[in-house]
């Protein structure tokens, strides 16, 4: 294993056929009718300097389903999802090799613009992180402004995103107030609205409820249930009850490897691997 610490990942694209498009084709103009993309992870390895965080992992995330990734701390859950929108390579010394495809488009292909990958694959973080200098409205609009998107009715898009995040009724009268003035749960839904505004097709959630109280958590979970009608959703969670509540499928990871992935019900009742059983019954982790 070379200990190279190049900043940019130099992966091996596995889809060399044809002239690859520089941007993700966005053939579906109406997001209301959108169906999420299938995410195919194939033999993915991710490193932080000498540390091997994800080891030869392959799995698929189906569109219009919620897939939960569970596993003990440090098992590579977050790293895995950060590889799906190429945020992993933003960490100095980090690199990833292998293949991640959205339907049939290789996102690590050198001709693919990383910006378009991140617009197609939105991400919600552990801690709500609205932009502190911006109002509620501007926070949602930031998703569009920051990517240089022009045209279209900004106000309409912001409203649609806020409605999509189930926040519109709570903030419609305070759109011009600072985003950080909202409660923690509202801030997280504001961040979800900000992600929705860029009209992604896949939404990654990295422990989106771990900083929220139970009521706010419930709201976000209901939202996830709704969002899966239109997106592919991958949620990393520490909370096994949450995985059981929201996920159609659950993947269990251990030390950078996929132990198993199956229907959530099966994982929690009759898992195929004894390690999974031990984890979900609370014997370790």
């Amino acid at each position, binding site marked *: 294993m070379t200990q190279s610490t190049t900043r940019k990942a130099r992966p091996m694209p596995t889809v060399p056929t044809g002239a690859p498009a520089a941007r993700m084709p966005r053939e579906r103009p109406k997001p209301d009718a959108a169906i999420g993309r299938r995410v195919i992870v194939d033999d993915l390895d991710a490193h932080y300097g000498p540390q091997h965080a994800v080891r030869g992992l392959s799995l698929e995330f189906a569109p219009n389903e919620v897939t939960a990734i569970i596993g003990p701390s440090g098992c590579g859950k977050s790293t895995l999802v950060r590889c799906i929108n190429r945020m992993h390579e933003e960490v100095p010394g980090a690199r990833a090799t292998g293949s991640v495809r959205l339907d049939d488009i290789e996102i690590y292909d050198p001709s693919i613009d990383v910006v378009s990958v991140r617009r197609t694959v939105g991400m919600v973080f552990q801690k709500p992180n609205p932009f502190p200098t911006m109002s509620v409205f501007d926070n949602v609009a*930031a998703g569009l402004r*920051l990517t240089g998107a022009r045209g279209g009715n900004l106000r309409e898009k912001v409203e649609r995103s806020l409605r999509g995040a189930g926040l519109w009724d709570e903030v419609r009268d305070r759109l011009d107030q600072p985003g950080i003035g909202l409660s923690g749960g509202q801030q997280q839904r504001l961040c979800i609205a900000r992600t929705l505004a860029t009209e992604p097709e896949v939404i990654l959630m990295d422990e989106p409820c771990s900083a929220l109280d139970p009521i706010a958590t419930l709201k976000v979970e209901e939202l996830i249930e709704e969002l899966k009608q239109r997106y592919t959703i991958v949620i990393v969670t520490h909370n096994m009850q949450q995985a059981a509540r929201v996920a159609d499928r659950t993947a269990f990871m251990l030390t950078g490897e996929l132990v198993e992935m199956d229907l959530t019900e099966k994982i929690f009742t009759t898992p195929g691997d004894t390690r999974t059983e031990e984890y979900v019954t609370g014997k370790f982790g």
Partner: protein
Amino acid sequence: MSTLVGIAPGRRRKDRLMRGVLAATTLIALVPLALILYELIKRGIGSWSADFFTTDANGNFLGDPGGIKSAILGTLEMVGLATLIAVPTGIGVALYLTEYGRAGRFGSLVRYFVDVMTGVPSIVFGLFVYITLVLSGAGGSGFAGWKGAVALALLMLPIVTRSAEVVLLLVPDSLREAALALGAPRWRVVLRIVLPTALPGLVTGSLLAIARGAGETAPLLFTAAIINGTSFDLSQRMSSLPGRIFADVGQAQDRLVDRAWGAALTLVMMILVLNLLARLVSRRSRLT
């Protein structure tokens, strides 16, 4: 099992003693500060008048020596130009250090040199500009206001850089990540997220650097020189408040020494206003 007991008398005594010592050192530190302000106001306020601020020093051997208009304007012009040079450059360097070269070897080298520059005595900057720009007659003249501004900018640059870097590092990485994950290119993240978030702190740091530059004499002595008349031409010699004080205070005539005190009070008041502005702006900061 341990039992709960009262504070031993010895510990109580020690506590009182140490608190007393700390209070005393604070008082000792405050005494010179208060005396300076007292003396400045007592001796300087007498020369303040409308004429004092609206006339130039006239060099007359007898009678009214004139005011400090040229010195105030000269300081404003040179510090203004120095700010235009030092603030954008310094914030640029800090942005490079925090956004692009955070971990690299070149970044730490730059950081080291900035630290060294902070410790360089101000007269060295003056000498440097004297040798490189004044003696060589750069720009067609010897002493010139813009050369004084360059010397001040050199002095202000590391202060701006250091304070800006600290503030930019306070901008949480989670905000950068949020913007990057939305698909924003890095330059837009810097322009739309990092800079606006850090703005109050950047302004505060710059104002403090300006205040520092405005009070410096040594970088101006061999670069802008000291003259009496008002000049708006930065390629000519230029008066400055510290220069005026330096020239007047060594004179044998009381009326000139009085003018030095008046100029000193003016300078201190200007810097005080800058500091107050800096504090007001920093209070608006959302970073902790």
